[in-house]
Structures are given as structure tokens and as C-alpha cells.
């Protein structure tokens, strides 16, 4: 059976996507910043009637047409919209691929008759897209190249086995060759595909290399070209609809258990683990209750996830009853399968308990508020360690050997003294101290590449000061700006 390919081209995708949701009268254009200038990249029909063209600068366009309404180009939203169209196009055939950012390719081989033949299929495509307010150019042919050429230049249908006669009058740009090749060919007087195909192959190959011949062969079916279909991204959500409303926490938990097993099965199949789960309970009076569970580690073990839901489910106000439960894995991370051995099993079970505790605590005080210390590469006491959330970090790095450091650090507190060695007597926090023994100084210079407010006083000479009253303080003197401060406490 001959392959039949349909190429759909949406020339005004960016503007029509916006105009579908927003009613805008009069001229409208989508603009993007290209080479430091705002340019129109897509227009509606009214704007084109007023003489505006693609690629025009926004300032020029405004001077032609002051009432022009514009919107910024959002390529991400366009891509999502194209994904949506791709899913829609699967109604015609199972083999659909993307073509650039504004087109689709459908391999309708053997599926056209299901919709009453090619003509009826094309009519159906046009009718449905017109109803969705989308402009579409359709081309159909035996090869991808021919379908593309017909969609972008002239629209039409190349009959089976008769590709060349359908595209021979089209300009050579329809062969997807580069602009440079196109210009050169046109300068030589080769303007249509028919003219190019009539040339001896050897001369074309010598003059332009293999690429032009390859494109021509692809269009005429002498060289194969495939469509790469896109697989659907896996969706991790399950739903349970109940014939009678439920209200007891125990019943909701039973429902969650039922939802959790298929979800975790799917996660296992895709070697991923869930980080954030959201359970929404639809009440019969329409009020939705949502429980969010943020996990300390990616998980896919239903027996471990289920008890973590208990606290959240207990807080649900079920009202007159809940008749639908929906469980969605909001954030999914890769979690490869790991081999457990006799020696690692005990350790991992202990770690599991700790991670479950962190999850439970995290749902009360916030997962980012459970932190661990990590060593940092700096001599500045405040920057010699980092505080990182436990859920997103591993205990790595060596702590190194340092001169004795205080166990508590605080903002430097001023002490009135006028000596360059620690003063014999001083007052701090309303207490009087007499010095017993001092160790130091240890000079720490500021990191000049950081602009730190606290280090404006310049270098610091740190002293460990043991007072006769017992307190052991970490004090520093700033010789460039003579004054004394207490920075920490040893005990």
C-alpha cells in the first residue's frame, strides 16, 4: 500500500491562539524581540489589510496603524497549544508528528477509509479547524516532502503515484532547501521543481552538493523519510467516584489506599518517584478539599506513603460527604531501581524511618525548614558553612580542622574598650567581666569580592577570651577602625 501523508500548516498559530481566548476587534499582531528590535511576527487579517507585514518593526507598524493592538510572543504557550493539536490529530490516525513549531504531519496510510476517504477526511479537518478559528493549509501526498510542499505552497492533493506532476509548478523553495541554495538556483533560472527535476542529476550534485538532490529525492519518494511520532507524557493521576458520599476519615483513607496502588504501579513502571502529591476530595455540595503531601525523598512505595496522609486526611472537613477522590502526583522525579543487599537493607530501613519523620515534620513546619549544615569554602565565620534543606541535599564534604570556634554565633555586639589587646575589664549584655586568659589573635581578612555590610570595618583580629566569671567569649578587634565586638560564645 502506498504511504499517504498529510501535512498541516498553521501559518497564524501565535496570533490565533491568543484570539481564540480573547475577543479583539481591529488590527492585532504578536510581537517578539528580534535583534534588539520589536518586530511583528504574526498578524490577523485586519492588520494585513491595513498594509502591515510580517517582520515589520513595531514602531513602523504603529506609524501606519496607530490602533494596532499587540501581545508578546509566548513560544512556550504556543508549544503547549501545538501539543494539544497533536493529541487532537490522533483522531485521524495513530501516527502523528510535529513539524517545526507550527505544523503537524499525519501518516494516514490505511486509515483514510475510516473517515470516508481522503476527500472526506480533509473536509473534516478543515471544518473542525475552521470551527476552532484556526487557519490551516493542508497538503496531501505520497511523501512527506510532497505533502509539506503542497501545504506551504498552494495547498492541494498529489494523487497516488503522481507526485511530480502535482508539485512541478511549485517554486523550488517548497523543497525545504536553504535560502542560499534557493537564491543560487533562482539566479541560474531554475524556478520550479519541474525545472530542477529535468536537470541532469550529475550537474546538480556537482554544483550544490548532496543536500538539494536529497530534498528532491525525498519529495519524489526516491529516498525514504520518516515521521517521528510523539508519545504522550505519562500522567500520574487517579480518580475514584463513589456511588454514595463518605465522611469518615477511615473511609477516605481506604479510598486513598485504593488510588495509591495503581499510581505507584505506574511510577514503578516509569522508574520514577513522587515528590509532591495532591489529594482533592469533591464534596457533594461542591466544595473541594485539597490535601497536599510534600515528601522528603522521592517515593513510590504505597505502604510508606499511605500513613503520611493520615494527618492531612484527618483535617478534611467532609461536610455532607465526599463523593469523588482524585490523587495527582504533582511533582515526579526519576527514581531508578536499586539493588538491596543484606548489608544495605538495615541501613536503608533506618533512613526510611528518618525520611518519613522529615516528611511528617515538613508538612507541619515546612519541608524547607528542616535543614542540615554543609561545609563551605570560606574563612569568614558566617560563611564557613551553608544551611541546606535536608530534603534536597546529601551530607557531603569534610569539615576540616579549624582553630577552636564558638558553638553559638550572633551579630557582633559592641564592647566599649580602647586597647589593642583584649581589655582587662569590660561590660557585655549588662554583665561585668574580668579577663582570666586569652588566646589569639587570629586575623581574618574580609573577602573583598563580596560586598558584605558586616565586614565594612576591615580585617578582624579574633581572640578567645576566658573570663574569671566563667563565660568564654569569641571577641574581635578591628585595627583599621579601632573597636571591640563579641561575636560568639564557646560554652
Amino acid at each position, binding site marked *: 500500500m502506498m504511504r499517504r501523508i498529510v501535512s498541516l500548516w498553521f501559518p497564524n498559530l501565535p496570533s490565533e491562539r491568543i484570539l481564540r481566548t480573547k475577543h479583539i476587534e481591529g488590527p492585532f499582531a504578536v510581537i517578539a524581540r528580534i535583534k534588539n528590535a520589536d518586530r511583528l511576527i504574526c498578524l490577523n487579517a485586519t492588520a494585513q489589510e491595513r498594509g502591515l507585514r510580517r517582520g515589520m518593526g513595531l514602531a513602523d507598524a504603529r506609524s501606519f496603524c496607530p490602533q494596532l493592538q499587540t501581545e508578546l510572543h509566548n513560544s512556550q504557550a504556543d508549544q503547549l497549544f501545538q501539543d494539544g493539536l497533536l493529541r487532537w490529530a490522533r483522531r485521524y490516525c495513530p501516527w502523528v508528528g510535529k513539524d517545526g513549531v507550527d505544523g503537524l504531519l499525519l501518516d494516514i496510510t490505511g486509515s483514510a477509509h475510516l473517515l470516508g476517504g481522503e476527500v472526506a477526511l480533509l473536509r473534516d479537518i478543515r471544518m473542525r479547524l475552521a470551527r476552532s478559528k484556526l487557519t490551516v493549509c493542508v497538503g496531501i501526498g505520497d511523501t512527506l516532502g510532497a505533502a509539506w510542499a503542497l501545504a506551504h505552497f498552494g495547498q492541494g492533493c498529489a494523487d497516488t503515484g503522481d507526485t511530480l506532476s502535482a508539485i512541478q509548478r511549485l517554486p523550488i523553495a517548497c523543497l525545504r532547501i536553504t535560502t542560499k541554495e534557493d537564491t543560487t538556483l533562482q539566479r541560474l533560472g531554475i524556478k520550479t521543481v519541474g525545472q530542477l527535476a529535468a536537470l541532469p542529476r550529475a550537474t546538480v550534485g556537482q554544483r550544490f552538493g548532496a543536500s538539494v538532490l536529497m530534498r528532491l529525492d525525498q519529495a519524489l519518494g526516491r529516498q525514504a523519510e520518516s515521521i517521528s511520532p510523539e508519545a504522550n507524557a505519562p500522567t500520574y493521576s487517579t480518580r475514584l467516584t463513589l456511588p454514595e458520599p463518605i465522611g469518615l476519615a477511615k473511609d477516605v483513607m481506604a479510598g486513598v489506599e485504593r488510588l495509591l496502588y495503581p499510581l505507584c504501579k505506574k511510577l514503578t513502571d516509569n522508574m520514577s518517584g513522587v515528590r509532591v502529591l495532591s489529594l482533592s476530595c469533591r464534596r457533594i455540595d461542591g466544595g473541594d478539599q485539597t490535601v497536599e503531601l510534600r515528601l522528603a525523598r522521592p517515593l513510590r512505595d504505597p505502604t510508606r506513603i499511605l500513613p503520611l496522609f493520615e494527618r492531612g486526611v484527618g483535617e478534611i472537613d467532609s461536610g455532607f460527604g465526599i463523593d469523588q477522590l482524585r490523587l495527582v502526583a504533582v511533582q515526579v522525579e526519576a527514581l531508578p531501581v536499586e539493588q538491596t543487599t543484606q548489608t544495605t537493607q538495615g541501613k536503608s530501613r*533506618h533512613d526510611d524511618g*528518618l525520611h518519613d519523620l522529615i516528611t511528617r515534620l515538613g508538612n507541619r513546619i515546612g519541608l524547607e525548614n*528542616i*535543614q542540615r549544615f554543609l561545609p563551605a569554602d570560606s574563612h569568614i565565620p558566617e560563611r564557613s*558553612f551553608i544551611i541546606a534543606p*535536608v530534603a534536597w541535599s546529601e551530607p557531603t564534604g569534610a569539615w576540616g580542622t579549624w582553630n577552636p570556634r564558638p558553638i*553559638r554565633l550572633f551579630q557582633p555586639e559592641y564592647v566599649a574598650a580602647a586597647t589593642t589587646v583584649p581589655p582587662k575589664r569590660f561590660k557585655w549584655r549588662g554583665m561585668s567581666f574580668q579577663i582570666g586568659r586569652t588566646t589569639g589573635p587570629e586575623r581574618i581578612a574580609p573577602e573583598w569580592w563580596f560586598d558584605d555590610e558586616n565586614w565594612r570595618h576591615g580585617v578582624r583580629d579574633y581572640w578567645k577570651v576566658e573570663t574569671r566569671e*566563667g563565660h568564654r567569649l569569641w571577641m574581635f578587634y578591628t585595627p583599621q577602625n579601632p573597636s571591640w565586638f563579641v561575636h560568639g560564645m564557646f560554652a
Partner: protein
Amino acid sequence: MRVRFSDVFPLKACRYHEVTGAGSYSFAAICCGVTSGKAIWFVEGWVPEVLNPHGLQTYCDPHRVLIGKCAGALDILAATEESLRSGSVSLVVAELTKPLSLIAGRRLQLAAEAGSSTGLMIVREGMGSNATQTRWSISPAYSPDDSTQMRWELNKNKTGTYGNWKVCWNDEAHRISVVSEPA
């Protein structure tokens, strides 16, 4: 009969204890050092003084200590109880800024028993609860030839008499040693 130091320290497991005084942070760090397994340390998020891991290093491995920053006193108590009950950490330290009620203290005691873990509350002077197993008052002491000396007073003990000791940290043996028995 006087209580012996070895009877009360290391702290009795499956119970919660209280500590006050200027040296309570190093006491908590020493407790982390003498227990094995992870420790979790709850503080109120607004407190400007921070724990310095390079200072903790003297007494225990900073990688073994997790920090929990709570919004308020109630959150600290709830988080402490939950951690004690889970039994996944061997020591739970909490810095309290409000007085501990008898009910709260009793709940902590039950949670520590259920999870077989040890709790240590750093409380302000006179803000403890009677439910505690022991209460310590720690103050650093000046000594001309030893810069780690501390005075450890045992002010409350559910299973024995009180006592006070002069102790110092033995860095080589990585343990606490008693300098003088109570006079």
C-alpha cells in the same frame, strides 16, 4: 547516698531531660556526641543566635545534626513530640523560650517512652516542668590551666539524689571526664 556521675550521665534513654544555664548548648552538643545515630535540634526561626557547626565539631559530627526551624513555641512542642514518638532519631534537642507546662512535659515523657528516644529541652531558668527525668544547670567555670572546664549541677533527679561536679571535655578520648566529685 550520693548519686554517682556515671549513673546520671550519659542521660537515661527513653526519657526526656532538661538543661538550663549558659553552658546548655555545649551540654546538648556533648549529648549528641555520646549518642549514636542522628539528632534533630529544634529552634524557633526568629532567634538571631545560630548554631555554628564548626563549634559543634569539637563534640560531635555536624553531619549527624539536623536543624528544625519552627514558627513558634507550640510548633516546637508538636515537632519534638512527633520526633520522639517516631524513634527515628536517637536524640531530640529543643530550645524553648516559654515555660514548659506539666501536661506538655508529661506528653513528651510518654512520647520518649513510646519511641525509645531521648529528649533534651534547653529551657530558661525556672521555666522547666516537673515531669522531667533530670534537670541540669550548666555553667562554664574558669580554670587557669583548662579551657574546657564546666560546672554541672544536677538540680532534679527522679531516680536519685542531686549532685554537682566539675567536669572537663577530654578531646583525645572524646568524652567528658570528672575533675572533682561534689564536696
